[in-house]
């Protein structure tokens, strides 16, 4: 080739090989498949990703800082808005940290209601992941079906808490309200229906050759690497590591429920898909047990130092009125100290590190968001993969930018 080339060149001109260099490409922050405002700087060699750099912070909300300026009770509605696809789980995580500071008992009925709300949120979040993740790869019908079922979860949220997404349903020492009449029957209908819907999603995807070609063997991360990167949740379990906070450090009475932790093996996008689909089925199992074993009794502690007195006491008891006024205007003051409380969110371990200086507001709240830690491993997963696979791999990590940036 070079020979023929030089022959046609004019006198005195030397031929040299054309060099090539990596191209830098910005993916996002307005890319639909980054599921939020994430910018990835990709270094491409042709179509192959050689290097990448995450640029986060586009959704920075300063919630961690805001917590320092709110009483403990006022922090709860803020926690909703971090991981906005699983607000009940954030509520519980935040509230558990405060309860740990106070060393407070939570009544069993409140624990069970929390479990129900959290498992519903887990299914709802996995549905969004499945819907958008498959939509990214062109599977539109799964997306629509997932949204249809999620709507039922939102209806349940609304019937219980009054809001479809930002439930803010916990209070320090329990939950804000008892379950409304007929709610458990509505939940039971959902629990009965949902497994057949999961079968539908699986019929569409699990053996589908196109889906498999886009996911099998992609974005692999080994168990050792996943642990090194601090990855948690289905991404970690997809690599075969058996770590689920609900099993390893049970909270809210998860030890009473019989459920499995699905484990993948290959650590690729397909393994994570299988893990999450299986997790939805396990959540249904938990819900089914929780409905049958829901204990009676109070749903919030009767400790008047932290929980508002029932409304019908207000006209009768001066003491209740005083507690009510003090709690609302000032809040309560936990003893000085620091705690770490953590729960299993749909994305992994969600932790709240809370420092109290003995005043009515937290001195510092540090959140350990699962999305932030899982996102760090993305560079590793997409290295050497095709540009088009990046979309599938981001989808399989299931990041929530509100959780990353908080």
């Amino acid at each position, binding site marked *: 080739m070079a020979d023929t080339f030089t022959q046609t060149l004019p006198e005195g001109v030397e031929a040299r090989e054309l060099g090539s260099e990596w191209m830098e490409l910005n993916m996002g922050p307005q890319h639909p498949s980054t599921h939020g405002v994430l910018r990835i700087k990709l270094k491409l060699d042709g179509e192959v990703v050689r290097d990448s750099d995450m640029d986060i912070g586009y959704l920075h909300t300063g919630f961690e800082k805001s917590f320092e300026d709110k009483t403990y009770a*006022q922090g709860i509605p803020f926690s909703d808005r971090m991981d906005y696809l699983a607000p009940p789980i954030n509520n519980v995580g935040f509230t558990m940290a405060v309860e740990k500071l106070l060393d407070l008992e939570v009544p069993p009925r409140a624990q069970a209601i929390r479990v129900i709300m959290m498992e519903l949120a887990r299914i709802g979040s996995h549905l969004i992941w499945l819907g958008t993740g498959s939509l990214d790869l062109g599977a539109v019908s799964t997306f629509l079906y997932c949204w*249809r079922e999620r709507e039922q979860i939102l209806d349940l949220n609304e019937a219980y808490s009054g*809001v479809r997404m*930002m439930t803010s349903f916990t209070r320090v020492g329990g939950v804000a309200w008892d379950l409304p009449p007929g709610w458990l029957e509505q939940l039971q209908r959902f629990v009965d229906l949902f497994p057949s819907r999961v079968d539908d999603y699986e019929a569409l*995807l699990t053996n*589908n*050759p196109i889906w*498999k070609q886009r996911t099998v063997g992609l974005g692999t991360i080994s168990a*050792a690497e996943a642990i090194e990167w601090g990855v948690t949740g289905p991404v970690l379990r997809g690599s075969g590591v058996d770590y689920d906070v609900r099993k390893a450090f049970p909270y809210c009475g998860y030890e009473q429920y019989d459920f499995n932790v699905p*484990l993948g093996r290959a650590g690729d996008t397909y393994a994570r898909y299988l893990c999450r689909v299986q997790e939805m089925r396990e959540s249904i199992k938990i819900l089914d047990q929780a409905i049958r074993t829901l204990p009676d009794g109070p749903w919030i502690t009767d400790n008047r130092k932290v929980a508002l007195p029932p409304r019908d006491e207000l006209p009768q008891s001066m003491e209740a009125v005083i507690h009510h006024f003090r709690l609302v205007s000032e809040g309560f003051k936990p003893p000085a100290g620091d705690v770490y409380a953590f729960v299993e969110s749909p994305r992994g371990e969600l932790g709240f590190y809370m420092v109290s200086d003995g005043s009515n507001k937290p001195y510092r709240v540090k959140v350990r968001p699962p999305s932030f830690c899982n996102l760090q491993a993305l560079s590793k997963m997409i290295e050497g993969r095709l540009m088009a696979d990046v979309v599938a791999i981001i989808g399989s990590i299931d990041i929530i930018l509100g959780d990353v940036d908080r």
Partner: protein
Amino acid sequence: MSDEDREVDGKPDQPTPLRGPDEGVPPHPEGKRPSVAADITALATGLKTTLGEFFSPAVTLEYPEDKSPRSERYRGRHYLRRYENGLERCIGCELCAAACPVGCILVIAAENTDENRVSPGERYAKTYEINMLRCIFCGYCEDACPVQAIVLGPEYELSDTSREKFIYTKEKLLEPLPPDVQARLDSKGPK
């Protein structure tokens, strides 16, 4: 904890491995692929599902002509309530403003006099404003109010044409309540 410490496979209490018969398929395109017949069966199963959905009734609503019902506990636009005799319930205690996590309520209280009696207690709210652009509809104000003066109603379509109109004043908040508000308050239980 190192990787070797963990026994991942073969635990009896673990669910069966999730991966099917073609486990460990190397990445495409070189990989061994399932047979064409298996592919076609898998696609046909999916198509059967979608075809079934095609003939099942639609679940969508034609908003805004059709609307889904709101639950009894829905936390939407606020109202200030009155007693049957027309007096305002609000006693200007500012507890709602103290409870609000985002600080979007402004209450300025004034004394009731015999000539100008607005509420049964000593004081009433001369100014009561909620900045609906800031409100996050957490319902803390409703919980905080000792006389159940401020409640959240079922309305959720709160669009308007200017930012000023989202500062809901006392006049706007005292508008007649939707009929089922008492039922709504009761539905939340004695808490």
